[in-house]
């Protein structure tokens, strides 16, 4: 039976280096992805993820099992990511693909001889639009959406990471998804006009005016 995160961390505290390796294997990819979606810079995301693990390792002797390990881990990651964004260290790379509205021409100039290059570009464009919409959310909403949608964390964990109540988190999440729904309306297949009630009646299936 696999050891729990808390047990692994306690073993790390007791000096077991292989337990740290197991924690690294478990959370390396989720952390890098969370940070990548936070800062939109793969190199910086890796750097920050290493910083998270470094801090966990350095704090191992003071570790006391309290909240869930992942709450602690992602709280460190969130703080580091927000600091990096505030310091302007984010988004040094991926400009050409991440922001088609500002850099669309460069994205279209990408050389690619593959037969499905056009489809790949379309996919990349859609992904860039999604990333940008998430990135434009206010900080707390962005963290909440990333932890809820992509890490599938429980409400109480996300609330602890953000330092708010569960009910405040739910309304925060709802506002964030509302914003994304409008921002990504073209991708979702809903015209912005439909939100204002000017869409054909068939589109909304008899919604109230």
């Amino acid at each position, binding site marked *: 039976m696999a050891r729990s995160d808390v047990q692994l961390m306690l073993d790390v505290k007791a000096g077991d280096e292989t337990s740290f390796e197991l924690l*690294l294997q478990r959370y*390396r*990819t989720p952390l*890098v*992805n969370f940070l*990548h*979606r936070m800062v939109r810079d*793969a190199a910086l995301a*890796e750097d920050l*993820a*290493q*910083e998270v*693990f*470094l801090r966990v*390792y*350095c704090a191992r*002797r*003071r570790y006391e099992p309290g909240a869930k390990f992942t709450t602690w881990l992602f709280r460190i990651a969130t703080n580091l990511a927000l600091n990096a964004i505030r310091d302007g260290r984010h988004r040094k790379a991926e400009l050409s693909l991440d922001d088609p509205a500002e850099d669309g021409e460069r994205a279209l100039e990408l050389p690619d001889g593959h037969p499905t290059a056009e489809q790949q570009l379309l*996919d990349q464009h*859609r*992904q860039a639009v*999604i*990333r940008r919409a*998430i990135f434009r959310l206010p900080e707390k909403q962005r963290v909440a959406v990333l932890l*809820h*949608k*992509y890490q*599938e964390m*429980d*409400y109480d964990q996300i609330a602890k990471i953000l330092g708010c109540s569960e*009910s405040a988190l*739910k*309304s925060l*999440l*709802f506002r964030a*998804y509302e914003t*994304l*729904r409008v921002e*990504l309306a073209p*991708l*979702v*297949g*809903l015209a912005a006009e439909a939100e204002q009630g000017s869409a054909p009646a068939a589109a*909304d*299936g*008899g*919604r*109230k005016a």
Partner: protein
Amino acid sequence: MMSCKYTADKILAYLDGRASAAERRELEAHLNCCADCRARVEEFRRLWSVLDELPAIEPSPAFDARLRERIAAAPQPALWSWLAPAPRVLAAFAAMLLVAAWLSWQSPMPAPETRPFEPSRSELEFTMIRDLSVLEDYDVLANFEALEVLPVVTEPEDRRM
């Protein structure tokens, strides 16, 4: 029946599967008669499938090696850090020391403890040695009749006036 405002967080829990069976039934009953909420649920469902298009990335192969380098390069904790379990404890200890120092500075020096006078050991020994000869001849001196016949000293007449 739930009001639509109240339904916001219920819709989230319904969509992400965290709603209980009772909550699901309650919301589904509401959706049957509220087109707005029904449309909202459908839009959110589509939105979430769009968000799923964002691909996950893999950490670079050098991730672990680079992390080990950083761990090796990190400053090692000082030996005394074992004695300092938490910064708060240290701060509290320092504050206690400061208060103690301040209190000792504020209050006058305590008076030396007063004890009833007791002759020192050397004084006792001296007295014993001084009286030793008298004690040795105690029997002789106690029955020394010559002392009894000594004339009583009287004051002169003129001094009595």
